[in-house]
């Protein structure tokens, strides 16, 4: 069935226009960074010619988790924090589908943190976009695990008590991390390159996107927007290759080989300047769905034979009715 689908898709669905991926009109606030993420993902789908019916966007709950509604693919708008296990179930039963996960900083790093850690270990072939606006948007401005210490929110009116959690160092610290990148919503060209690299990586691609929430934290990323020197652009033949225009603006660059995990960890811990680019990539780590041989063709005959063999183990035959022992 899988092979059949593949060739059908090749035959009929070669080209798609951008509109083919545009679902409902986004209901995000003006200036919300989620719009930029949506634009680059729609562009990716078009450029890669992804069949809309074989592409699934899975999300949790939050402003960012509305994302699937704005794609004209299959979508699964799930429950808070649980996008990852839903996506894993989909991938396990249908490994041929393209699976994307959209999740917020609360969704992924707080309520869904256990799933995030284990998703890294499973290393299933899917792309996760962490829309990290450092705040809970949908529920109207509560502190998030990634809010910097001192952030004033409705639950921390005198400022956040704790130092922020760094999703990059956490991810890079977990066994089987295979793709870790950071993008910012305000440099669309690099965002696109990163999303594209994530899509092409076979394994669990973790992309943190620093995303503006003008509604609740209008000042949060202002210093970085105004001073390009505070962005550390990671470049490499195997990573981001900025256009001359971008390279001209973001001059604080560093050549970083995504194969170098020690250096990746060092870079990941830098909060200022913020690193942008591909921190780590290791295509050699096996995917859980491959280890589990997902997507096997099953026939009723296989199931029948398997069941009969199992029943044989427990069977008491009437006298004289034992089946002939097979050789």
């Amino acid at each position, binding site marked *: 069935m899988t092979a059949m689908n593949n060739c059908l898709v090749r035959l009929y669905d070669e080209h798609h226009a951008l509109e083919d991926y545009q679902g409902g009109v986004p209901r995000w606030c003006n200036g919300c960074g989620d719009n930029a993420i949506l634009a680059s993902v729609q562009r990716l789908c078009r450029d890669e010619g992804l069949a809309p019916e074989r592409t699934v966007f899975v999300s949790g709950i939050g402003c960012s988790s509305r994302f699937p509604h704005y*794609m004209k693919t299959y979508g699964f708008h799930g429950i808070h924090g649980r996008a990852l296990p839903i996506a894993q179930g989909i991938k396990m039963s249908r490994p041929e589908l393209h699976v994307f996960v959209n999740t917020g900083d609360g969704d992924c790093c707080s309520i869904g943190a256990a799933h995030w850690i284990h998703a890294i270990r499973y290393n299933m072939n899917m792309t996760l976009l962490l829309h990290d606006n450092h705040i809970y948007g949908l529920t109207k401005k509560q502190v998030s695990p990634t809010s910097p210490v001192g952030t004033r929110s409705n639950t921390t009116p005198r400022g956040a008590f704790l130092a922020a959690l760094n999703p990059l160092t956490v991810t890079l610290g977990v066994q089987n991390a295979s793709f870790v990148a950071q993008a910012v919503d305000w440099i669309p060209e690099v965002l696109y390159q990163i999303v594209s690299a994530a899509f092409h990586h076979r394994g669990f691609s973790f992309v943190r996107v620093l995303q503006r929430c003008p509604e609740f934290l209008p000042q949060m990323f202002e210093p970085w927007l105004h001073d390009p020197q505070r962005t550390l652009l990671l470049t490499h033949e195997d990573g981001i290759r900025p256009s001359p225009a971008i390279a001209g603006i973001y001059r604080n660059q560093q050549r970083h080989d995504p194969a170098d995990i020690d250096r990746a960890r060092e870079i990941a811990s830098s909060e200022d300047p913020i690193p942008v680019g591909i921190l780590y990539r290791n295509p050699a780590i096996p995917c859980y769905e491959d280890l589990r041989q997902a997507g*096997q063709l099953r026939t009723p005959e296989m199931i029948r034979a398997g069941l009969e063999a199992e*029943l044989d183990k427990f069977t008491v035959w009437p006298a004289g009715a034992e089946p002939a022992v097979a050789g």
Partner: protein
Amino acid sequence: MNATLEAPTAPVSAPVAQVLQEHIVEIVSDAGEGAQRCGQSLGAIAAKMGNGVWNVEIIPAEIQPPARSVAGASGNRIRIGAGPISNGGDETDLVVAFNEQVLLGRVREGELKPGCTIVLESMWREHRDAAIAAQYAATVGQLRADGYQVHEIPMERECQKIVADPRRGKNMWALGMLCRIYSLDLALGREQVAYALRKKDATVVATNQALLEAGWAWAEAHLALRYRIPAQRATEPQVVVTGNTALALGILASGMEVCAMYPITPATSVSHYLSDVFEKVGGIVHQAEDEIAACTFAIGASYSGKCAVTVTSGPGYSLKQEALGLAVMAEIPLVVINVQRGGPSTGQPTKAEQGDLLTACFGSHGDAPKVVMAVSSIEDCFYAVITARKIAETFNMVVIVLSDASLATAQQPIPRPQFSAEWLAPPIDQSPVPEGARAYDWDPVTGLSPRFVPGQPGGMHTLTGLAHDRASKVAYDPANNEAGLHMRSLKLAALQRALQPPAVFGDPDGDLLVVGWGSTQGAIREAVEELRAEGERVSALHLTFLQPMASGIGEILRRFRRVMTVEANWSDRTDDALINADNRRYSALAWMLRARYLVDIDCWSEVRGRPIKPGSVKAAIRERLTGRAGAAA
């Protein structure tokens, strides 16, 4: 008393076996001494002989309780009968114990018949620790004084003739002895040892077979106990399985492909067995990071492919509740197996209880109509999963299958299932969706709608746990919200119309109807049958579908002067000073029947962490019949 070690009972010359209609035998030891395996094997051998059999595990709450402790009894109880056996029965007739302390635990729990036969390891009498020897002597003396028939047997010493460490192997020696006592076929015993140790190498099997034979020979030469329970080999093939194995086989036979779980007693053994065999037929058991992940993983698998299953027990079920609300709202088929237990944390709570019926019917959040079924026999465990899968996919609903710890480890021969291709779902639909079709085109009468699966061209939509309209668009308007609730509720009615009314066990009317659900069926029927034989006008009704409930139940209830439920969950005792008709908390099914049928239904329940015994049910029914209990003031 002391000097009988050489020949604990006078050497015997071919005693005549006493013919019995049934016997309950148990074997108990410290955990890890293999009494479980001995009992399971004994049950399997008797079943192969053609006896009715019901095995129940005796499980200590801790994995490694201290040796020789009263709370540490681990083992198995086997009820063997000349005819079919539907439950574990009452107290034990004959017990084999590896030390007197675990035996004492069984005595104190009231599990042994007064004056029953005890076959006891005698090595403790001469133990080098004087305190242990004294403890043993005192206990045996007391048991004899209390009327128990104690046979002291040098099992350890006899086993040492074959193995260096009798902790490995005494169970098989005891099995041989029991085969002799119950006149079972030694050749079947040898086969069973080979099967039980199939994962071990040939020398291990040979050693254990030698132990089996030694146990047999010793009993032949030294023990006067001889019983024979007439057996009739079935004319059709039977499979001897536990409830949890039957559930796993049901999963396999249902054609489901993904089972996501997180370990929890007593559900875990379903996934142990399934993990061993599922991959051979292309299935996958996924042990997730927690129950929430297990449930949502199964939901994702169901959404994009064939209906999936998640297996759990009470506390795990609690964690799945939010996800179940999502599956209900988004109309994703899902089978949830809850092998119920008593409560939170671990230990005693892991034992038998029917505690989750109301949670299953009414849990999650908001209105979340789900189908709830309960299995009441080992055979049910197998077929219920197949039915559940079919209902889940026909109605795009969550189907909860309730089993419990009593059935989980109970073992019984059942007719060997004959595979049918109808058990399986058709391959997932990948055909294009017709123009204009909508993901939730609810049929206004049945509430049913199609299911668009990824891969279907033209079916693209975003499924959501939010209220949505027929096109799966998030709906903020009240009319759409209400329409969705309406349609999802209608599906239960549509299923209900397809259910057959349950059959009454006994006469269709009378003085008392006993209603039950789940694992108590065998015990209730046995009690009712005995009372009927004694002339009482009692009948029983057992429900498989708890939500929705079949038509016709109300009429059945009204044909009896009184109705009561028998359940293994908490209900307030009417003789408590504070309890009256205004505040009494009823057992789960009693609540539900009272609410639906407006009949004044009473209940009797027991929560002792063990299967309810037919004798206890009989006593409770008697009390109701004589009017001495039940009517809360």
